[in-house]
């Protein structure tokens, strides 16, 4: 027997498809503007057989992966540094806030001017929001570490690098993971937009290509894949919150 957690979302999905079919059969929109579910399924078959879907998916995931990894590697140490020292924080935090608030899509012209077409501009466009969002979250997490942990560290002679390794970093890790989930969501949105204008492949490019070729069925195929991967990406990162040494941060 199916549990409610499976049965209910499936029922919702079926209802959605039914509504979609109904709207198609009423011919609210022209057939070229709204494909029917059957056409979309056929489109999926075509995309899978040609290998395009797999190639686009791989390209997009590669860019998001590289962007997130580079962004995390740069932002976490930088954020810890900002969080630990008042001077750098005062000097740089307003700038970090400025760039975090700046839509990554505003960088698209520069991304193309500087990096041309292909992987590099897209990775750059993901790196921007990833770096600034994670930096800010990490710095804020350091500021929120309860005083008692530093008192304990002082009592037991933990200083400098050991302090960073044993106290500051692990104390902020749960919040860093939460920020990473948020950042992955942003990156997944940015990659689609970035590939539309500066890609030769990827799911975003596929969306744009389908639009140019007036293939609404393929457009919907790619939209479905983009949505599903977005959910799966978050689910995947959610596993990090179950690691035994960070779970304390989520049980309040």
């Amino acid at each position: 027997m199916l549990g409610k957690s499976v049965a209910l979302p499936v029922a919702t999905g079926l209802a959605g498809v039914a509504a979609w079919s109904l709207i198609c059969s009423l011919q609210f929109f022209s057939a070229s503007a709204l494909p029917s579910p059957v056409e979309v399924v056929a489109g999926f078959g075509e995309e899978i057989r040609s290998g395009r879907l797999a190639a686009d998916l791989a390209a997009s995931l590669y860019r998001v992966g590289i962007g997130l990894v580079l962004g995390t590697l740069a932002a976490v140490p930088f954020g810890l540094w900002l969080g630990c020292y008042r001077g750098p924080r005062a000097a740089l935090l307003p700038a970090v806030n400025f760039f975090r608030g700046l839509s990554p899509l505003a960088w698209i012209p520069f991304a193309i001017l500087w990096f041309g077409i292909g992987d590099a501009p897209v990775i750059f466009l993901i790196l921007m929001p990833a770096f600034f969002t994670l930096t800010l979250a990490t710095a804020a997490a350091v500021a929120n570490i309860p005083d008692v942990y530093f008192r304990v560290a002082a009592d037991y002679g933990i200083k400098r690098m050991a302090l960073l390794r044993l106290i500051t970093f692990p104390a902020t890790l749960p919040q860093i993971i939460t920020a990473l989930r948020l950042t992955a969501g942003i990156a997944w949105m940015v990659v689609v937009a970035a590939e539309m204008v500066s890609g030769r492949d990827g799911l975003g490019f596929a969306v744009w290509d389908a639009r140019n070729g007036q293939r609404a069925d393929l457009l919907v195929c790619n939209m479905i894949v983009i949505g599903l991967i977005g959910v799966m990406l978050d689910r995947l990162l959610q596993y990090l919150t179950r690691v035994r040494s960070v779970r304390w941060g989520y049980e309040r």
Partner: protein
Amino acid sequence: MSDKVLRLQRVCHSFDGIDVLQDISIDIGEGEFVVIVGPSGCGKTTLLNLISGFHKPVAGSMIRMGQTRMVYQSDGLLPWMTVAENIDMGLPRSTNRASRARQLSELLDLVRLERFANHYPYQISPGMRQRVELARALAGEASILLLDEPFSSLDYQTRLLMRRELAHLLARRASTVVLVTHDIEEAAQLADRIIVLSGHPARKTFELSLEAARPREPTDEVVVEAMRRLLNHLGLLNVGLTKQPERRKDALAKDALAAVSI
């Protein structure tokens, strides 16, 4: 100060111009268990912070031999470390791996948490967490143990068990202890010497020495007598209470017996 490990002389402290501690003089000998009693918010924690060196006194002097280890009122265990890793923090850095492992297992054994070595603090009970903190604090050699209301967040039963536990621990690992509490019973059960502070600003108003072996039960004569004298000093004996009529007491006793025999 041959056998004295801590000497406070006319120590005063204030925050933002408000006096918190006034003229506190305390001598503490090696291996002595001193309990400082006072109302909540009277500056007991500030006194511990002065002893640990976290605050510098505004006036007066302090001489201290050896390091202090504090057990905090709020949970002081690092939640991202296991029980064993938390206790390991307390061991001297210089010791080699083999002797560290041996000492660690001794300490785990001491607080009866061998089976929980690889558990995280959020996976064990508050009483167990408090035992881990004690083990961590006792891991170093020759230190003064500062306990800041260590059992105040526990229920009464667990508190009684923890007092007994602490007494047993100290019997096996002698250490100088300064414990602050607002719990007079706790003071009477544990202390070699009880120091009573008044509130706002805290002054020393009373001192009581007890020469009796630990652990002591709340019903032990020496504990009851110490509590009677402390309550009397605080003017809390028979305040606002009228004696129950004899008849009523008998009725209560009968009820109690009846309840037991069911």
